[in-house]
């Protein structure tokens, strides 16, 4: 029906030039004012195709949100034999690998390998659960000491005194092919329970 009206309009339009028979002069009038069915189709089609094409573009931009957060990587602490006979906490520096877009950033982090009360080897994060200062092992005092607000922890990392709300945090560790591996991560400070930050 639309089509018919359109062709009727055409016949009413004055023509400035002669037309040959093989094509009809189109009359658009005011494109924006009298929108024909065709213009409507074009607009819808254009919007559809444009919308379809923008999907990959939007996904491209949203990649940081769409990509699943990178898994924590295991870092090597050393051969498990090194820690077989330890009685006191031992400090080690590990390489922690983090992804930064197309870069892989390797940073050095300190950790403590300790022997827990049940005789198991454990790995402690040196980050004070109070306000995040790095805790140091003092052999003379047989204690972990936090330099910031004098928090003190036992050789197993349990809280002895000071403002920290909990003991030192242990990190997920495992032994694989005789190597001690650890997952370095940060935990929320100032809360009584250990809560990983992601």
């Amino acid at each position: 029906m639309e089509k018919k009206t359109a062709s009727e309009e055409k016949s009413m339009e004055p023509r400035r030039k002669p037309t040959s028979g093989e094509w009809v002069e189109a009359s658009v009038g005011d494109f924006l004012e009298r929108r024909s069915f065709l213009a409507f189709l074009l607009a819808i089609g254009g919007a559809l195709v444009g919308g379809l094409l923008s999907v990959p573009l939007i996904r491209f931009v949203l990649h940081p949100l769409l990509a699943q957060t990178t898994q924590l990587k295991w870092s090597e602490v050393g051969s498990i034999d090194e820690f077989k006979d330890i009685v006191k906490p031992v400090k080690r520096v590990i390489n922690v690998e983090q992804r930064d877009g197309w870069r892989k950033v390797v940073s050095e982090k300190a950790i403590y390998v300790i022997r827990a009360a049940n005789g198991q080897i454990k790995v402690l994060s040196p980050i004070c659960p109070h306000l995040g200062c790095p805790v140091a092992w003092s052999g003379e005092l047989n204690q972990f000491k936090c330099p910031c607000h004098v928090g003190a922890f036992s050789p197993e990392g349990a809280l002895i005194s000071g403002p920290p709300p909990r003991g030192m945090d242990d990190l997920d560790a495992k032994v694989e092919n005789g190597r001690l591996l650890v997952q370095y991560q940060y935990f929320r400070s100032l809360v009584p329970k250990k809560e990983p930050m992601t």
Partner: protein
Amino acid sequence: MSEPEPRNGKIIEWVDRRTGLNTIMKVALKEPIPGGARWAYIFGSGLIFTFMLQAITGIFLTLYYSPSADHAYTTVSYITKEVTSGSLIRSIHAYGSSAMVIILILHLTQTFLFGSYKGRRELLWLSGTVLFSLILGMAFTGYLLPWDQNAYFATTVGTNVAGEVPIVGDWIKRLMRGGNDMGTLTISRFFSLHVLFIPAMIAIFVSLHVYLFRKAGAAGPYAADPVEPNLPEESFYPRQLLMDVAFAAVLIAVLAGLARFSPADLGPRANPADTQYLGRPEWYYRSVFQWLKYWNPPYTIIGVLVIPAVVGALFVGLPFYDRRKERRPWKRPVAVFVFLFILGGLIYIGRASYVEDQNNPGVRDQILQQEKETERLMSQPFEPELAGVAKAAPVAISPAAERGKAIFERMACGACHGEGGTGGLALKLAGIGARFPNEKLTELLRKPTPKMLEGGMSPSPLKDPELKDLAEYLTSLKPF
């Protein structure tokens, strides 16, 4: 219906009063085409469409691309292998450049065969020739950016060609490369040209080209007089618009299909030391590449300069010396023959380049092996770039400093100040020796200033000799 009552009339009127949009649309859509709409006229708008597609995908690609010799390859690999839809967008952009060159050639051929440059269209033609070189410039500069072997060697050859030009050649070559050799400055330059300079020029010249086109009016079919076509006119809307839209739809379908089912690959990282690698330019530069092989000293200058200059001058000056109003191709046999001869010649020697590669067993095997290697690399997962291990190089230090180092480690100073005093939560200590003499350092360690105390530094419980050793160690730490 003869005096239509606009739907949504109020809003449209409001917008139109302020923008004149209605008028612009009218001018754009009512462009009169003498002789009516034709498929032959779709290439101009096809070029604008592809250019916009290239601009959009290109802008998005810069989100993840880094233009430096160190990172370009990794970032392109990241886009290709890791970023969501990255391969698709990069492939559309890469294939889009080929599409643009093809449509450019079709547009030029149509204009030439229809004699549409005649009849007061000299400036229109000139702006077109500028756009021609700008688009080829886009293709050339863009090709280098992934910084893989092919990009590197193709551009090395390309810039070497410029070096063949007598007298100023070497100067041009160094200017293009940003130095004697291809390197990080070359990428910076090409990137800047590719995303800023040339696109801006293209935008300006496209506007000019379209303006001049509308000023002169569409030339219409080749039977028509170029100045007074004297043919019944059809407006651009709707039939020509529909044809243009159909062409755009085909283009996008082909590009998306190619990008989806045969994505653009990325070869091995550029390695200037690789003497085996055979760099081959993109197909549209293949004929130039092959052409240069035919010209050896002392005739190089003829092939590199004389013949291209003559052809270029003939090309640019066309509407100035071809002043006849006759447009029908069969009535202009010489012009049409020369045009087709050059076009056919380019296609022929371009093809010859591929054939030559295939016929030389050594070359064929090397290229085959390069393709295999590329395929293998494409199947590998993305390998991120190692960054951020900023370790001070080990320097020989005095025994006192050596003892101080042990103290530094025992006292866990590094927990705040970073391993090796590289800085962390607290002050970076490397380089502190330049600011304080040893005695002052000892003093500060024993009795920190209020500001230091506030920052979490505690007075050291160490004895004097130990403090001296520690200060000695701190002084030995060099900034990096």
